[in-house]
């Protein structure tokens, strides 16, 4: 533990230790590392930087096939829980403002949404979770809530294709927000997000941080 006491946000050993704990899905070690960091140093955003650095690395590992979905999921969940535990006043992470919501469109596969939500919240985004909705429900909710970015998660091809109808209806009813889509159909068919009229796609949870930051006009 001693080496954590001299934490410098650029300390790659600390980053590696935290990343390793997450890849082993070891919540206890991950929490100990973060608490040591906060006891010894408390630069603003240091915990968030630790989290983002580790999740970015795991995202890159996932893209290259070196990390598995279970590791991505457990990492995001552990980070989200740690941030909520250590910073109880901001359990949803309100450091990055912007009205954003995530939803499943006519799809019952919640894992991808859960992973993205954990990564975004752990990285300081405030994201509303709208669960699973039909097109009709989603249009009504989007217009009422006036969100800036609507993140749509899908696993089924049929659900992904329904984004096109959703986009048409939202446009017709004057929705001004942007649509960020993700999920297996968009990964397997790189043209699909454009075909359905989305504003952007993200290949994985960490990529969603970059893309969402861009859509909100902020640096990731």
């Amino acid at each position, binding site marked *: 533990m001693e080496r954590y006491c001299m934490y410098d946000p650029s300390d790659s050993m600390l980053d590696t230790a935290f990343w390793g704990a997450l890849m082993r*899905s070891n919540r206890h070690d991950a929490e100990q590392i973060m608490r040591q960091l906060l006891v010894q140093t408390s630069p603003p955003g240091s915990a968030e930087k630790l989290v983002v650095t580790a999740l970015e690395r795991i995202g890159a590992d996932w893209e290259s*096939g070196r*990390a*598995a*979905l*279970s*590791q991505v*999921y*457990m990492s995001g*969940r552990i980070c989200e829980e740690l941030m909520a535990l250590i910073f109880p006043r901001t359990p949803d992470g309100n450091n990055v403002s912007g009205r954003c919501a995530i939803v499943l469109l*006519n*799809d*019952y*596969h*919640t*894992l991808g949404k*859960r992973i993205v939500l954990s990564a975004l919240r752990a990285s300081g985004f405030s994201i509303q979770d709208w669960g699973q909705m039909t097109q009709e429900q989603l249009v009504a909710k989007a217009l009422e809530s006036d969100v800036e970015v609507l993140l749509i998660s899908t696993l*089924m*091809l*049929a*659900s992904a*294709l329904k984004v096109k109808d959703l986009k048409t209806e939202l446009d017709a009813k004057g929705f001004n927000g942007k649509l960020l889509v993700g999920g*297996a*159909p968009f990964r*397997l*068919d790189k043209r*699909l997000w454009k075909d359905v009229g989305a504003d952007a796609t993200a290949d994985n949870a960490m990529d969603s941080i970059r893309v969402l930051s861009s859509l909100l006009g902020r640096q990731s």
Partner: protein
Amino acid sequence: MKAMSSMERVLTTLGHREPDRVPLFLLLTMHGAKELGLGIKEYFGNVEHVVEGQLRMLKKYRHDCLYPFFYAPIEVEAWGGEVIYADDGPPNSGAPVITSAEKVASLSPPDVYRTPCLLKVLDVISGLKANVGGTVPIIGVVMSPFSLPVMQMGFGAYFELMHEQPDFFWKLMRVNEAFCCDWATAQLKAGATAICYFDPVSSPTIIPREHYLETGFVIAKRTIASIQGPVATHLASGRCMGISDLLPQTGTAVVGVSMEEDLDVLKSAFAGKATIMGNLNGIAMRNWNAEDAEKAVKKAVSLAARGGGFILSDNHGEIPWQVPEDSLLAIGEAVREWGRYSLGGDHD
């Protein structure tokens, strides 16, 4: 070379020899409803519909298997879960049947022969067998004991069970193994030629190799040994290269491979140990014209056909509803044109 029956073609390639042409498995389920002009729910509600749909598709596309698989959540339905139908895609499973780890302790597997949804599948298999005898392979399907909990309890809750409550996890595996063995055995008795063991959670896409070695690998070895017939393992689009040395050790004869890995690399990795099946992109397939289909088929054949040990198929184990008849016909034509081994074995 004399034209072979589908069964001869498949058995030859499974023996790592070259048949008359590359076998083609169009893993079609919902498309049978289109053939009969029915909705998906109505189609799967009647045994005669599914038998007729499968036979019509066999004749129309001239591919090499019958696929009496209804939809993945049928096994959850057997455990008392809900199935949610859609008009334009496969049915999904509803709310989890296992809502807490503690519920695992009191779980017992359903009796296959007293479960109406499973009996329908058995009747379809018997009906198909009565029509084709031994000329066309009939592929039965089971969810692996290790992957079924994704539908029984939800992906996230299952990951948490695996990592945080190993006692309940192993209890669940024992119950699921008993069911899987019973379900596979019943399908073989009804006339299935082989069993496709869907095990996506074992893919390195989903869990790390080290975790697979301790879990999915052990479970697959035990379960496949208990199935008295040939088994094909399908990872449902998941990658397999990271466990390519382990999969043949489970006793599987075939591995369904992902479009995210290179067919030539996969072919080398499994050479002489298992036949590979794949890996056409089912998502992109919905937009394929004849030229696209020919290009995809030629590429796959050139990379993996030589020496047998290869079945051309989609990469997921189920062709999406949105893939049109013309694309499927084009794939069939391309295989008959470019998959012939009598071309001299030069598929480059």
